[in-house]
């Protein structure tokens, strides 16, 4: 934290120094970005930078400013349209579209922020060149600058395109959706015909108080619990299952290793949604599994034991049954993947270690518990967290398997949730399956899921990035 504050301080002190000690060209570059470069002999670079500056100003003034100006109210003019029944001409007023205002507004602000950042680093960069010149050192020509882009500044070349993609497809949507959590965007306030506006913290308060329409607080607590249980179960079962299967297949006594592996891999190669929908049909109340079980008398036996009251097994329609089935089906889905990656790891166990253990007279079990397992755990530990997070967000499995499920819990029903929903499927149902389309509530839930996942992953990965672990294997 202290380092961080110091870094910020240094950032602005550097800026101050550059402005105060800069010569006229450097100072001028505050206004005309390329001035410093041109003044210090880098004409082409100067022109390019100025052109970029002009472009940004033009974009902001012409395109994004009208939207930014309306950001505070998100628009006030509702659409009105009149159709002339004789000429079929339609007359529309110049209406506001809250969604576009928010989207373009956010984009505009991101670009302005980038502009300010650009301005500061530009001044500093100009000051650096000025100093280089004063000290009589070499100033790069344009060609040399270009060359540095494939050499010591190669990272800029590499990261530019991917960053643009990420800004438009990740950052912009995320900021937009976070903003939605503070608005009243739902079916009744849906652009283009209707406007939505800011409502402050109201949605967050609604989420955690049990009054209001649906008892969101209750549902949230219930589903959060299930989400965490599910993520733990799903991660653990597929992980252990995958490793065991890999051990089984890679054992010296197993023949035709490649064939066995391929058999399991086939299940991965059919798109998940096909297999999931297929399985949900197989296990439906009147599906083939129930048909066969009832023919061979299992259903009758269960009825006698009092496990079920219906004359079918409600695999996918009753709580308890469905919870278990989802975890089991997920094992079916997930184990082949884990088996593949565990296979790779097992094949890569340093053979010297195994050899020396064998020479020391360790038996197979000892080798397994003392060498193989610790090694596998050491390597796959972090990936466990990744798959835990992946399971928190495991939309497909839950959504595709629970299409026929109807909850018997009225409180859950009132907030459009099912007992077997994860937070992620709940937020999807709120927007897509509920006629009220409460985007703002979905957004609130999304923010919480995000926080949970981000904290978890930061804890794990900061260990990885921090320190010198990167260099260990070199």
């Amino acid at each position, binding site marked *: 934290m202290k380092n961080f504050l110091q870094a910020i301080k240094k950032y602005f002190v550097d800026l101050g120094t550059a402005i105060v000690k800069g010569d006229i060209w450097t100072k001028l570059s505050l206004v005309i970005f390329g001035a410093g470069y041109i003044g210090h002999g880098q004409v082409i670079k100067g022109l390019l930078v100025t052109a970029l500056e002009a472009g940004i100003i033009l974009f902001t003034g012409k395109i994004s400013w009208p939207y930014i100006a309306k950001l505070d109210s998100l628009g006030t003019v509702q659409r009105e349209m009149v159709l002339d*029944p004789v000429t079929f001409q339609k007359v529309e007023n110049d209406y506001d579209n809250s969604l576009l205002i928010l989207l373009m507004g956010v984009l505009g602000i991101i670009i302005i922020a980038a502009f300010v950042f650009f301005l500061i680093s530009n001044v500093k960069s100009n000051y650096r060149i000025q100093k280089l010149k004063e000290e009589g050192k070499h100033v790069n020509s344009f060609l040399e600058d270009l060359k540095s882009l494939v050499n010591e500044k190669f990272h800029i070349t590499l990261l530019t395109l991917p960053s643009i993609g990420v800004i438009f497809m990740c950052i912009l949507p995320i900021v937009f959706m976070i903003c939605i959590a503070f608005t009243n965007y739902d*079916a009744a306030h849906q652009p283009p015909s209707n406007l939505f506006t800011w409502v402050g913290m109201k949605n967050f308060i609604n989420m955690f108080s049990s009054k209001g329409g649906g008892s969101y607080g209750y549902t949230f607590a219930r589903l959060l619990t299930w989400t965490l249980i599910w993520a733990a179960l799903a991660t653990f079962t597929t992980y252990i299952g995958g490793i065991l299967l890999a051990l089984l297949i890679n054992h010296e006594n197993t023949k035709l290793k490649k064939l066995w592996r391929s058999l399991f891999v086939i299940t991965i190669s059919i798109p998940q949604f096909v297999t999931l929908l297929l399985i949900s049909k197989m296990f*439906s109340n*009147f599906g083939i599994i129930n048909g066969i079980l009832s023919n061979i008398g299992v259903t009758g036996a269960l009825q006698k034991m009092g496990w079920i009251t219906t004359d079918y097994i409600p695999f996918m329609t009753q709580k308890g049954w469905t919870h278990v089935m989802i975890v089991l089906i997920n094992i079916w889905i997930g184990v082949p993947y884990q088996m593949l990656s565990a296979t790779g790891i097992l094949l890569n166990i340093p053979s010297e270690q195994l050899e020396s253990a064998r020479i020391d007279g360790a038996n197979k079990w000892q080798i397994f518990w003392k060498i193989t397992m610790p090694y596998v755990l050491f390597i796959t530990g972090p990936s466990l967290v990744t798959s835990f997070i992946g399971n928190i967000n495991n939309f497909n499995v839950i959504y595709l398997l629970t299409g026929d499920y*109807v909850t018997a819990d009225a409180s859950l029903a*009132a907030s459009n949730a099912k007992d077997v929903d994860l937070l992620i499927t709940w937020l999807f149902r709120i927007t897509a399956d509920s006629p009220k389309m409460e985007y703002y509530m979905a957004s609130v839930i999304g923010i919480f899921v995000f926080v949970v996942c981000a904290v978890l992953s930061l804890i794990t990965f900061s260990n990885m990035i921090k320190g010198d672990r990167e260099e260990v294997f070199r």
Partner: protein
Amino acid sequence: MKKKLVAVLMTAAMAATLAACGTEPETENTPADTNVTVAPDGETTDVVVGQGSEDAIANLIAATEGTVDLTLWCSETEAYQNVMAQLVDEFKAAYSDVDFNITIGSQSESTCKDEVLKDVEAAADVYVFADDQLNGLVEAGALQAVTTTYTYNPIEADGAGAVNAASKDGILYAYPLTATNGYFLYYDSNLLSDEDVSSWENLVAACEREGKKVAMEFSGGWYLFSFFYGAGLECNNLANDAVNVCNWNNETGLAVAKSVQDICSSDAVINLGDADTCTQVTDGNVIAAVNGTWNTGVFEAAYGDGFAATKLPTFNVNGQAVQQGSFAGYKLVGVNSYSDNLGWAMIFAEFITNEASQLKIGNATQEGPANLVAAPQIATPAIAALGAQSNFATLQRVAGNYWTPAGTLGQALYEGGLDDAGLQKALDDAVDGICAE
């Protein structure tokens, strides 16, 4: 907004007076005719539609340059897609002066609203939807009000119920297409007698006797409504679009819930979704089912010469036989108010909903037309059954909060095992959810 519409009506009236021509004698001297329709449940709506002129169409043709792009969304079923393709060709032939590029998309009318509202500007110009979506679509400004018509007048041509279903606050928002989107009882008359299907008690006993099943989607709000409505209870959003009024948790409601739970307690009664119903009917396990015209073909094939349909049975409330009610459903054709070719979209929507087109659609899909002349010409047992049921049916006017809680109530009743207190709690919870703001 209202004022503007009045202005539109005035213009329409003036235009019609000025340019009236003799094609439709009834309206020649009455520029805007008024029609009062009475809904099945007695609610009255005044719907007025101005009569546009033939000249307007001529002007439109003259003013049209280049190709007119139109998109139509209608049901994904083969029958619908084929008959619509045929109608599109006829439409092109009827207005051969204009070059049309009409695309037909497959979009189930039961989920049409969701698709339209995802992005109204990118939605189809003309789309077929189920009447319960009307309020939501109007609220989102996705429907162009039908204030003027050019080739026929839906208010005169179509049944009063259909017109009422297509109207809101006295304004017609869509062109009625079919009038049979409701439900009734299919049964196999080789196994079940008239007496058997007259009441749930008999029906359940008969199915137990035959060792077969009767199916209904108890866990769906659309079907569950029928019991409570039949017993005279109310659940609607007539007072306020966004909020339901529901009294299912009173004493009668408790008796209804008890009765439904009793019905479901029999092994012969199963709770089946639409797709499962078809499968089970085909497999011969289900010999009676509460379902709608869209599945006529399935039942016909499965029951063969025993294929029969009738109104829903009665059921027992506090020892009295009560007729089960239902939702009356209509398919409507709407014009997207964001369409780039609003004029042609309206003419096209009129064309596919006129008498001749409705008759063709009826013949192709076995669904009953909304058009009063075409309706009697499509006579199937299913449509007759729906006709009999229509006396006990009401318009589907419920706000979005109805569906999930009602489905959950149905699921709880179907799972059964609740005592009076449990039932009362289930009803209270459901009503809380249904009436939530």
